[in-house]
């Protein structure tokens, strides 16, 4: 059955199709990725003694969680046929801004978090709006955003000591558990958004064939702006969790996060060309990536080699996507 990556079953717990059928269809879509994850986990399990502990497993989830929150946004944007290279820099801006709100202005954490999320959403929406108005390709607009937002974060942070935040705020980054719970909550909401709502389900149509969507009366431009806005919002949320975890904010954070997020989304099986995918796949992709990173570290392989390994896997994942498209 080659319909392995359609999103249809997830989205249609229909009256006639039984719950078991839906479950089976969903499993058929992701079993290859699940098998890959199991193989990779098994490999490191055999190769490294300390890797076998439950704490290691927990730390894989914990370390994956911040990037995974951001990658949920990337999933939406990629499904809609878009691309946002600037989310790593949005991450930096929001981290620094939230830091300033609390460390310098003394705003209560709830307000700082709310404003930070608004900031992320606004920067994402700005990317989308510029694209829609100018018709400059997403790659270029968000490449510009990547640089410009990074500059903005540096300007905002310069000469400031952004650390020592209130306890109630730091709670968001407690251990592996709280970030992990936030990650699962975000993934669940993103999944519901993509499969159950009008705006979310239209992302698949726009990513699949923008012209058909337009001719069908879908407000393509407006929808796209929303997708970028959500991408920015989730980048902001990821930044907030990280700042809470580290207890400091600096503009260098978030660097290359957009690339790792895209990598996780693609490894999970969401198409880089739009129209297909899902947030559960993104989580699996993120776990695969994190398992490799943690596993290689336990085997004493350095960060530089880890990067090479991740790079190779990205190419394999995209090749797989291209191959699947050409064989159906």
């Amino acid at each position, binding site marked *: 059955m080659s*319909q392995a990556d*359609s*999103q*249809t*079953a997830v*989205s*249609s*717990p*229909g*009256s*006639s*199709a039984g719950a078991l059928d839906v479950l089976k269809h969903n499993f058929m879509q992701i079993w290859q990725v699940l098998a890959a994850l199991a193989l990779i986990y098994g490999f490191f399990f055999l190769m490294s003694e300390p890797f076998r502990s439950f704490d290691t497993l927990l730390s894989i989830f914990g370390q994956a969680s911040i990037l995974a929150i951001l990658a949920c946004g990337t999933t939406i944007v990629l499904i809609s046929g878009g691309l946002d290279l600037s989310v790593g820099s949005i991450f930096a801006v929001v981290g620094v801004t939230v830091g300033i709100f609390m460390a310098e202005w003394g705003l209560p954490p709830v307000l700082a978090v709310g404003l930070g999320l608004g900031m992320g959403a606004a920067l994402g929406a700005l990317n989308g709006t510029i694209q829609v108005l100018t018709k400059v390709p997403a790659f270029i607009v968000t490449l510009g955003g990547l640089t410009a937002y990074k500059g903005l974060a540096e300007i905002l942070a310069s000469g400031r000591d952004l650390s020592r935040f209130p306890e109630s705020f730091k709670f968001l980054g407690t251990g592996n558990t709280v970030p992990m719970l936030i990650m699962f909550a975000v993934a669940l909401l993103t999944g519901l958004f993509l499969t*159950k*709502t*009008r*705006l979310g*389900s*239209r992302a*698949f*149509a726009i*990513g*699949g*064939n923008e*012209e*058909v*969507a*337009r*001719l*069908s*009366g*879908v407000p393509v431009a407006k929808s796209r702006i929303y997708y970028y806005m959500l991408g920015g919002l989730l980048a902001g949320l990821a930044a907030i969790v990280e700042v809470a975890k580290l207890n400091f904010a600096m503009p260098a954070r978030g660097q290359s996060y957009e690339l790792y997020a895209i990598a996780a989304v693609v490894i999970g099986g969401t198409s880089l060309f*739009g*129209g*297909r995918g899902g947030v559960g796949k993104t989580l699996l992709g993120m776990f695969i990536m994190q398992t490799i990173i943690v596993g290689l570290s336990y085997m004493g392989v350095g960060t530089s080699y880890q990067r090479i390994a991740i790079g190779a896997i990205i190419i394999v994942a995209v090749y797989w996507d291209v191959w699947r498209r050409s064989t*159906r």
Partner: protein
Amino acid sequence: MTPQGDSVQRPLVLEAQGISKHYGGIVALDDVDLTLHEGEVLAVVGDNGAGKSTLIKALTGAIPKTAGVVKFDGVETQIDTPTDAKAAGIETVYQDLALVNEISITKNVFLGREILRDDWLGRWFGVLDFKKMDGEIRDLFSKLDVRIADIYREAQAFSGGQRQAVALSKTVMFGKRVAILDEPTAALGVRESKMAMDLVRSLKDHGLSVIMITHNMQHVLNYCDRVMVLRLGKLVAVCDVKDVDGDALVGLITGATDAGATA
């Protein structure tokens, strides 16, 4: 056979006057008039590049027209976007642009007109009412005798004939007055073509008037009431199908015959 002859007496549904479309200096469509009567099937024929697709795209707001007026039930109607056309009751099946391959049949049928749940989830979060949409699709498909086993599968999984049947069903579900079809049998085999054309004929029974682009003269003669011929962006003839035969039409299309346009 198709009922013929009485269509001219029926009231006009759609009337387009002086439709033109220029791309820079190139004239794709030059001052074309079109009339569509209640319950008729109007064929639009012409060679490649004659302006058939341009005409329907301009009519339905898919591309902006350079000049021209569209009247609906005798009232001038502004149709600048596909949404305007849908609001006026015109449903269009574009060639190669009917369905999104990647999404399910359900989602394709309701794309752009999804039904939301009638509660706070629907109102505040735009949550879809799958149950209602699935039910309406099943009713529609059984009414039109369209056989699609699994409406949750992505459109790509279906044959050309099935996909066309889905696209045509969409016009019945949403088209209140007019269905415009761009080569509904272009990519279909013989059996599938017949299926699709029978479906086109049944659109009439559902209260739709049909404009259909086609290259198939047999389809014009067997299924249509009137035919308009375009050549190089100009209207060269409009006639009742019962007054022409295949050879005469081909002559008009290629320019071998030069009949004065008859309305």
